[in-house]
């Protein structure tokens, strides 16, 4: 019984952890490129904010899946 709980928690952690790493990696690349762009064209701030924010969807979806694992898997 306890083993199952550990497994569920581990799966939930994976569900949010892996997308979090993926988001971090994507944002690091986009952020670095965005910072370079802003140095030359500050008027693109809005576009850069959007581009940096886009990969966050991954971790949000990961969070949803993790929540579903924790609350629906019995």
């Amino acid at each position, binding site marked *: 019984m306890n083993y199952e709980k550990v497994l569920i928690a581990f799966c939930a952690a994976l569900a949010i952890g892996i997308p979090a790493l993926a988001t971090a990696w994507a944002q690091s690349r986009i952020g670095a490129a965005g910072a370079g762009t802003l140095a030359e064209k500050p008027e693109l*701030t*809005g*576009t850069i*904010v*959007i581009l940096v*924010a*886009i990969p*966050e*969807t991954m971790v*949000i*979806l990961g*969070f*949803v899946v993790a*929540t579903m694992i924790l*609350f629906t898997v019995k």
Partner: protein
Amino acid sequence: MIVRMSKIEIVGEKPLLQGVLALLRELGIFQIEPATVGFIEKEWEKDVRSFMLDEKTVFERLFLEELRQKIELLFAELPALAVRKSYIEPVSILDTVSKTIDRHRESATDLSKRREVLVKERAELGRYSIFLNALASLVQTTAETPDLDFIGLTIREPDMVGHLREALSRITNWKYELQTEPAEDGTLVGLITVEKTASDKVKKSLSDEHVPELTFPESFGKLTFPEKVTFVKKRADQVLREIQAIDAELARFTRRWVPIYQRVKEWIDDRLSLLNTTAYAFETRMCFFIHGWMQSEDLPRLKQRLRDDFGARVMVEEKEMHEEDLEQVPIVLKNPPYFKPFELFTGLLPLPAYTSYDPTPFIGIFFPIFFGMILGDAGYALVLGTLAFVLLKKNRHQGPVRDGAKILMIASAYSAFFGILFGEFFGDLPERLFHMEPLCMERRTAIVPMLAFSVAVGVAHIILGLILGAMNAFKHKIMKEAAYKALSVVIIVFLIVIIASLFGYFPLVLARPVVLSILFLTPFLFFTGGLLAPLELLKSIGNIISYVRIAAIGLTSVLLAFVANNLAGVTGDVVTGVAVAGLIHLLNIILGVFSPTIHSLRLHYVEFFSKFIEHGGKKFAPLKKT
């Protein structure tokens, strides 16, 4: 909201063009359109050409450009000092200035060049001074005899001294003296005293060994070493005095003449700007034409001023706006005082197209709600509200800081509202201290309800975006797009009904007809939205799920506050507990400003605006006095 603009044509007698342009510049309400496209009918195009300046005006322009260049060159020679403002009438002194400028520039250039030479000499003297000062003490202990010669040198490496002594012993047969002293710049300087007969040999040997001998300029003449030291000091003082005298002279000149030249230059800039603007006008044999854009509400004022100043000799006509003009119309955003500060966020995006919507009111309505839902803590709201109040008091003039403070104030009010609903005041303090229950739900434990609430907000927001998009498309008679967006709304609603049926909120029997309805609508979706329509629909569903971040980030905030309060309890000491909790709450408040702001904006920029706002507008840039 996007202000209604008018397409304007101003026609008048050619000699009045500059007067009309001057008036337009004074009013600052009219943007000139340099292109004729959309303004002049095709059959008239051959009779209309760009406005050509007459010979007298061309000469005036050349004269003013030359004078401006001379004034700029004069300014380049003068020091940048704060000077009084001159109120002299520039036109009356234009001729005088054109005659005096050459003399003044020559005089200023001479002074500047002289100063430059002196500064260079002072730098060189400084270099010799370092060397000579280091040797001064050595020279004083050395007997001054006519048979002896002194050779100064710089020794870069201290190890060289031994090697040098060996060489000197060999050349002079032990008849020499070498003294060394560290100089102010860290190098080692040396003074060799030898008999004059051996001097040349020693110098040659130093040259062969690549030991640099210090050579003095010709002005030092045949001075002895001690005399050189005194000479350098005297000359350095003299040069400094001369530089100070030139500086004083330049400052006096600047204070006396720069205000006058500055005044003349401003007038020339203004006049040349007006003359250059004439290039955007058009002419026929008798008349000039100016085309452009202005806010419709300003049109009566322009008509009145032109009538007052020029009578019936200048006419204004509001032209019909065609479909092809819409891309050229410049954009002015004007919002009520409540929404005005949110233009700070709109400014991060490209301007909306004239036919689209101003994003500001939408950000003004939804941003504080999302911010409040994410932060949702009355205590934090109190801190942020106080911060916003202080910022507002300290920044009384309009600007980004004041706008930001106003936004923070509004967002704090919403945070306080949601904080009361969630029963949060610096986390779960009300429950810990007074056993108070939340009015609505406790976010820390009610995770699934909070997720559902966030998604519900997302559904409402995205559907609103799609409806606005459909309305906009319908208004511009793009029926396929309007139908596609309306169909998307219907399918999203159907999908929600299916999910609600599956989870038992609606009767399960409802699911089958709704699925059939979706299947029935799918071909229409392809027809209106193209082959990628289902993909776009999936994107919209993804957009809705993205609103889960409201609950997710809110959860991190509430958990951090919970941890802060727990740690405070664990310390067992009131002072330490308050300090620990205070620090963590402070961190949470800092995060609570940035994180909700960025995520709320992202929900607007990416999820919401992509459904109905078209970008690509150009900023309204009216003709104004420089």
